């Protein structure tokens, strides 16, 4: 169940309300790998397999309070780009796909799509009485700037769903540096999510409200995230990597009846050993 929660944290928690960079920063992989503008234009892909351990200070969903906050899981990172069309699925940045449309000396512009994961009864037994919060597609534009070891990213996405519409936006800045063969990176971000998205996923409408889930409406929200990560090469094919994330979530999100508590401070740590093909 913990892992299910984590999966949800990536796209929903991250993109909808908290936007924990841990959780889908968008530039995490590029910063970790000190990527440059030249990599954005090349055809090809990556594939990595590994195992990792993660721990977080908070349980997100009501009803899961007794669950373990630490878990072991597989790490599968893969992505491919062909003539500008790309798809990425990795534990740094979550899932995204799109088209790398324009590249200048320092900036790369993408048309990007992704997915907001739904919140359903599988996430918590307590949610059986609630309406199903379905997954939704997101589409938008992303600009990524590469200046030496610094990467900046601006992104705006529109969520597409019959029952709601809303906008997400984020500004991220990341930098990386090397201490001997240890590669370290730091990312900070601000994330905006409009009321339409917040309310659909974390609000409780009058029809589903109960004594346990009081009616609740959410407004627009802004959250902040930081990530400190490290990567160390063991051989030409094996790496170990770790990261520490802190996110400050919005009050809107903290007060949602779906939440296990009203904390706005989220800390998570993870480490993994990865085979790079």
């Amino acid at each position, binding site marked *: 169940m913990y892992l299910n929660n984590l999966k949800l944290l990536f796209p929903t928690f991250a993109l909808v309300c908290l936007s924990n960079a841990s959780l889908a920063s968008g530039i995490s*992989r590029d910063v970790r*790998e000190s990527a440059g503008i030249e*990599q954005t234009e090349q055809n*090809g*892909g990556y*594939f990595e397999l590994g195992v990792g351990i993660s721990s977080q200070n908070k349980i997100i969903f009501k009803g899961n309070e007794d669950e373990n906050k630490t878990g072991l899981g597989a790490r599968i990172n893969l992505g491919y780009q062909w003539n500008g069309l790309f798809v990425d699925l990795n534990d740094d940045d979550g899932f995204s796909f799109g088209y790398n449309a324009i590249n200048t000396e320092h900036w790369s512009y993408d048309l990007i799509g992704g997915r907001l994961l739904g919140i359903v009864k599988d996430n918590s037994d307590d949610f059986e009485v609630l309406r199903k919060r379905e997954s939704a597609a997101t589409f938008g534009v992303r600009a990524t700037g590469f200046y030496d070891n610094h990467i900046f990213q601006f992104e705006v996405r529109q969520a597409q769903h019959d029952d709601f519409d809303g906008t997400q936006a984020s500004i991220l800045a990341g930098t990386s540096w090397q201490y001997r*063969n240890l590669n370290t990176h730091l990312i900070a971000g601000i994330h905006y999510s409009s009321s339409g998205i917040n309310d659909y996923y974390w609000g409780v409408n009058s029809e589903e409200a109960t004594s346990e889930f009081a009616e609740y409406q959410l407004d627009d929200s802004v959250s902040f995230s930081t990530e400190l990560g490290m990567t160390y090469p063991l051989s*030409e*094919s094996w790496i170990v990597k770790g990261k520490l994330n802190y996110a400050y979530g919005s009050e809107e999100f903290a007060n949602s009846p779906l939440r296990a508590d009203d904390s706005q401070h989220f800390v998570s740590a993870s480490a993994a050993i990865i085979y790079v*093909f």
Partner: protein
Amino acid sequence: MTKIKLKNVKLKALMGTLVLLGQCLVHQASAESLDESSESLSSQASAELSISPEQCIALHQGQVCYQNVIIEWHADKMGDYCLFSKKLSRPINCWKKSASGKLAFDFQSAHSVVYQLRQMNDNLDVATAEMTVAWVYGNKKRRRASWRLF
């Protein structure tokens, strides 16, 4: 007609003699040269140079790779030896009147480096060893890089 034939036979005999003489001279000269070369080889030491570890792994291609390494050498003759890298004209370290040596140092390079043990009396390289720099993510091996699987 007969005179001409006789002249031809004499000419052929003379040519044959000259060729044989030439071959003898060449043979003698090369034998002398071989002797000199053997003398030179016999004065040159033979040595073994080893580096441990032999590889430094960086995360990205082009990054400076850091590795604490130990270089050891053993020669069959006592002498003055110096350790050079192909990147530097001055020696990294020298040993006087020695037949072996050991050096620990902090390797820092973005590229592979060849080390040479030089016998200083003759200024001859007697052994070489290479410290290889490898990496996980080459410039064409990540997000937008070629699959190694296929």
